[in-house]
């Protein structure tokens, strides 16, 4: 301890006392990594299942459609479902951490997983091909709406689709924002932990 600190200043004396750094227990860190892996796996499985359902459903409707434009739209929606499956596998499915990983490796692994998911969540519009989904939906809905203009009663058939679309858009952005916020909070938590482990 340096000797130049004034002997009668308790704050300086207190703040300059020697301290020992505490390392985060490895078990706790591994538990955290495993927890994140399990969560990511469930999330990836749900996304993959949803993508497959969307893909099969629209492929089936595509095969039954008669007009060209809606058929192309349905085909596009089916491909979007397939792309969603691939992107979920690529960006959300967790990689494996070796059982003998050191604390540093575990920390780096945890960080890279969080960053990968944050990257996917922040670019989900592009990565999941949501623009193509909307284009496909427009190709299916717009010709139907144009045909229905002659009879307003037929137009009512499209109301549920438009309501669902509006609900989805209203829910999508707040959920995405919350998810990004949570991932950033985990990364901040990790920064705190890394600084304490140095």
């Amino acid at each position, binding site marked *: 301890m340096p000797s130049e600190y004034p002997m009668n200043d*308790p704050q300086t004396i207190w703040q300059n006392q020697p301290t020992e750094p505490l390392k985060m227990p490895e078990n706790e860190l591994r538990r955290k990594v495993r927890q994140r892996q399990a969560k990511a796996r469930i999330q990836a499985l749900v996304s993959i299942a949803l993508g497959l359902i969307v893909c099969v459903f629209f492929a089936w409707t595509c095969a039954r459609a008669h007009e060209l434009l809606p058929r192309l739209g349905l085909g596009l929606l089916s491909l979007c479902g397939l792309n969603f499956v691939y992107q979920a596998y690529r960006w959300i499915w967790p990689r494996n951490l070796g059982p003998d990983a050191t604390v540093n490796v575990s920390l780096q692994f945890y960080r890279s997983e969080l960053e990968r998911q944050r990257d996917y969540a922040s670019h989900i519009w592009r990565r999941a091909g949501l623009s193509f989904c909307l284009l496909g939906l427009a190709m299916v809905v717009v010709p139907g709406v144009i045909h229905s203009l002659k009879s307003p009663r037929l137009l009512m058939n499209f109301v549920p689709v438009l309501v669902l679309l509006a609900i989805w858009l209203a829910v999508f952005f707040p959920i995405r924002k919350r998810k990004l916020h949570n991932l950033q909070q985990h990364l901040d938590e990790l920064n705190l932990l890394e600084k304490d482990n140095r």
Partner: protein
Amino acid sequence: MYGPSLDRLARAYELDPDARRDLLQEIHLQLWRSFAHFDQRCSLRTWVYRVAHNVAARHTIRQRRIRSRLVAIEHLDLLSGSDPGELAVSQNQALERVSMLIQRLNPLDRQIIVSYLEGMDAASIAGITGLSPANVAMKVHRIKNVLRRLFGEGGPHAE
């Protein structure tokens, strides 16, 4: 980031090195577990201290033998066996005096004195303890008086 401050905080609550290490580990684990609930309504520093003090206070309260002897800063007579007017001859001796003083305080006053020694202002200490800033300012004033008597007229931060 707050490693050394948390180590000092643990020292204020536990003198035994092994028990202190356990306490410090418990504080880190609690911070780690409750970080997801940090809602940014206060600064990260205030939040870290609040969680850490709560864990440490629980640790002190569990030790009934010690708890019965703890007093408030208002009822503190200066440490027996030391001459308050005399300047400490070494850093270690000075630190020991502060530590002994802290060890005699009840958890709430301990939170205040440790936060004060860490250089926090009354508003931050109020955020940690849940007391009003005016109440904290009054307590800090008393703490300064006690420390001044303990360290001689030169300090601390004589107004």
